[in-house]
C-alpha cells in the first residue's frame, strides 16, 4: 500500500465521520443563522439611520419641501408629517415614532427632540431657516432671490486630495474584519478538533492498532488533511451564503471585493491550518485523556486569540501602521492579520509574498518538529509526557 493511499484513507475517514456528526451540521447552521441575523439587522439599522421622521405643525408645515431637499443634499432622508395637535405630537416624539417635532413660525422655530437631536437634521433645518430669512430680506431689498440662488449654487471650493480616501474603505474594513473573524474561528475550532481526534485515538487505544499498519506521520497527515477539508467546506459554505445574503440585502457591495476576499481567505486558511493543526496535534499527543487536553492547548489557543483581538484593534486603528504590518508578516499571526489587511487593500505585494514564504517555512519546520513529538508521544499512555522527552527520543 502506498503512503498516498494510507493518508487518503485516514483523511477520508476523518472527513466522513466529522461531516456526518450532528455537531457539525448544527454548528454550521448556527453560524449561518447568526450571520443572516447580523446582515438583516445591519440592513435594518442602515435604513433606519438614514431616515428621520419630522413632524411639522402650524406654519412650519411650509418648510416640508425645502427641508426634504436640503436633507437629501446632506445625505439623509427626511420624511415630514403635518401634525395638528402639539401635545399629541410631543407624545409621538417621546415614544419614538417621530424623530423631531418642529413648531412655531419662521424665523422663530422650535424643535422638540427626545434626547439629543440629530446634528445633520438640525443643520439642515437651520440652513432652510436662514435661506427663508435670506429670501424674505432679498425680496424686501428688491433683488430676485432666484438669481442669487443660482449664483450661489455655482460657487464651490475646488478640492484636491493628496491622499484620496477610498470610497470603499468602510466596506473593505468590514470585509477584512469578517475574513479575520472567520479565519480565527476556523483555526481555533478545527485545530481543537484535530487535538480532540488525537486524544480520542489515544484514550481509546485504537492508535495501537493503527500504528501497527500505518506510520505515525501518515496518520497525522491524514487527520490534518481530513479535518482541514471539513473546515474548508464549512468556511466555503458560510462565506458563500454570507456573501449572497450581503448582496441580497445590499449591506456590502460584494462584486470583485468579496470574491477576492474569499480567495485570500481560503489561501490563508490553508496556510494557517497546516501551521496550527500540527502544533495542536503534537500538543494533544502529550496527554492521554480529554480532561487534560485543555491545559496543553491553552498556550496555542491564546496565541490565536491574541492575534485576533490585538490584530482587530490595530487594524481598525491604523491598518498600515508599523506594528500591525510587522505582526501580519510573522507566521503565528499572519493567517489572521494578513488576509484582513489584504481585504482592506493595505498590504503591499512584497508583504504578502514575504508573509507566505515565512508561513511556508514555518509549516515545514513545525510539521517536522510536531511530527516528531507526535510519533514519540502518541503511544505513551498514562501520565502526561514532557515535551522535552518527546523531542529527545
Amino acid at each position, binding site marked *: *500500500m502506498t503512503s498516498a493511499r494510507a493518508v487518503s484513507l485516514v483523511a477520508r475517514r476523518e472527513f466522513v*465521520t466529522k461531516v456526518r456528526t450532528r455537531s457539525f451540521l448544527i454548528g454550521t447552521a448556527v453560524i449561518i443563522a447568526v450571520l443572516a441575523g447580523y446582515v438583516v439587522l445591519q440592513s435594518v439599522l442602515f435604513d433606519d439611520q438614514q431616515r428621520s421622521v419630522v413632524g411639522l405643525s402650524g406654519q412650519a408645515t411650509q418648510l416640508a419641501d425645502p427641508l426634504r431637499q436640503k436633507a437629501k443634499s446632506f445625505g439623509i432622508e427626511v420624511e415630514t408629517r403635518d401634525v395638528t395637535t402639539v401635545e399629541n405630537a410631543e407624545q409621538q416624539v417621546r415614544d419614538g415614532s417621530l424623530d423631531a417635532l418642529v413648531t412655531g413660525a419662521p424665523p422663530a422655530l422650535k424643535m422638540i427632540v427626545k434626547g439629543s437631536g440629530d446634528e445633520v437634521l438640525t443643520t439642515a433645518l437651520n440652513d432652510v431657516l436662514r435661506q427663508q430669512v435670506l429670501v424674505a430680506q432679498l425680496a424686501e431689498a428688491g433683488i430676485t432671490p432666484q438669481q442669487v440662488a443660482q449664483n450661489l449654487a455655482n460657487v464651490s471650493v475646488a478640492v484636491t486630495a493628496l491622499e484620496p480616501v477610498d470610497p470603499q474603505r468602510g466596506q473593505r474594513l468590514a470585509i477584512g474584519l469578517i475574513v479575520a473573524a472567520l479565519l480565527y474561528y476556523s483555526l481555533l475550532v478545527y485545530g481543537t478538533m484535530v487535538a480532540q481526534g488525537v486524544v480520542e485515538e489515544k484514550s*481509546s487505544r*485504537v492508535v*495501537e*492498532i493503527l500504528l501497527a499498519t*500505518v506510520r505515525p506521520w501518515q496518520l497525522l497527515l491524514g487527520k490534518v488533511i481530513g479535518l482541514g477539508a471539513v473546515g474548508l467546506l464549512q468556511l466555503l459554505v458560510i462565506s458563500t451564503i454570507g456573501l449572497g445574503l450581503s448582496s441580497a440585502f445590499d449591506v456590502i457591495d460584494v462584486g470583485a471585493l468579496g470574491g477576492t476576499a474569499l480567495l485570500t481567505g481560503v489561501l490563508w486558511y490553508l496556510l494557517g491550518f497546516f501551521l496550527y493543526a500540527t502544533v495542536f496535534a503534537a500538543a494533544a499527543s502529550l496527554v492521554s485523556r480529554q480532561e487534560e487536553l485543555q491545559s496543553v492547548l491553552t498556550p496555542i489557543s491564546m496565541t490565536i486569540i491574541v492575534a485576533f483581538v490585538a490584530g482587530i484593534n490595530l487594524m481598525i486603528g491604523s491598518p498600515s501602521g508599523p506594528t500591525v504590518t510587522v505582526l501580519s508578516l510573522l507566521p503565528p499571526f499572519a493567517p489572521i492579520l494578513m488576509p484582513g489587511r489584504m481585504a482592506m487593500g493595505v498590504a503591499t505585494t512584497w508583504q504578502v509574498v514575504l508573509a507566505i514564504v515565512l508561513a511556508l517555512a514555518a509549516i515545514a519546520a513545525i510539521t517536522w518538529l510536531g511530527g516528531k513529538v507526535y510519533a514519540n508521544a502518541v503511544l505513551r499512555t498514562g501520565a502526561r509526557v514532557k515535551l522535552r522527552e518527546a523531542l529527545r527520543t
Partner: protein
Amino acid sequence: MPEGVLEIDRISKRYGEVVALQNMSFDVRAGELFGFVGSNGAGKTTTMRIALGVLAADSGEVRWNGRAVDLDTRRRIGYMPEERGLYPRMRVLDQLVYLAELHGMSTNSAHTSAENWIARLGLRDRRTDEVQRLSLGNQQRVQLAAALVHEPDVLVLDEPFSGLDPVAVDVMSHVLREKASSGVPVVFSSHQLDLVERLCDRVGIVSAGSMVASGTVDELRSGGVPRLVVESPTTDWTATLDGVRVIEKNGTRCVLELASGVDDQAVLHAALAAGPVHEFSRQRPTLTELFRNVVTTEARST
C-alpha cells in the same frame, strides 16, 4: 495458503534502568497455536508490541519467513492489543471496513471480508451500531474481527480470552484453532493456563523478560522433578529412603518428590514392605504447577 515462521530472535528492551526484555527468543511455525504465558510484567505485551513495530527493540530482530519484518509484512499480521482499542463512535461495519482497507485491502474486498466476519462472529444485528453502544462481550468480538478482517498471515493476540464469557471463549478458541489449521501461525498470551494447556500446540513460559521454558505441553510436563502419588496407611517408611521427600500429605495419600537417580521401584518396595498400597502413580505436573515452579525459581534466583 500462507506458510512460514514467525521468529522472535534475541530481543532486548530497557526502559531506563528497568530491563523489560532480555534476549527473548522463540518461534511460531505455520499452523501452530503458540501459548505465551508469564506473570504480569514478565514481558509478554512488550514482546508483542515489538513484533508489531509499535515499540522499537534495543537489539534483536523479528523475522517473518526468514526476513526482518517491515511495514509491508507487518500489515499482514492480525493484532489484538492488550488494551482494547476501537473508535468508540464509529459503526461496527465502517470500522472493520476501514481497518481492512488500512491493512491494504481494496474497498470491495474490505466490505466482503468485514461482512463475512460480522456474520461469523454473530454481530449481524449490530453491524450499524456504534461500538460504544455494544456490550463488552460484543465489543470483544468486534476487536477479534478487527484482528482478522484483513485475512492476516500471522495472528498476534494479547490476552484474547480475558473478559470473555464461556460461550465467547468457545467461539474464540474455535476461530483460533481454525486459523491455525489453515496454516496461519497464531501466538497469544493468556493467564488462563488450563485453556492454554488445552488449546495450544506449544507453550512458552516467560519470566523477567526471558523465555525460561518452551515446548509442547507434554514435553514441559514430562520434564522437571519426578513425583509420585502413593496411597498407603503410613508414611513412616519414607524416612528410611534416601532422596525421597514428602511434599504433601493428605490423610493416607501423599505426594513424594524423588531426587534424581532414585529408582521408583525401590520406593514401591519400601512402601509395600510397610503396608498395603492402594495407589501408586507418577504425577505429571499441570501447566499451572510448572508455571508456579518456574516463576518461583526465577524469583528466588534473582
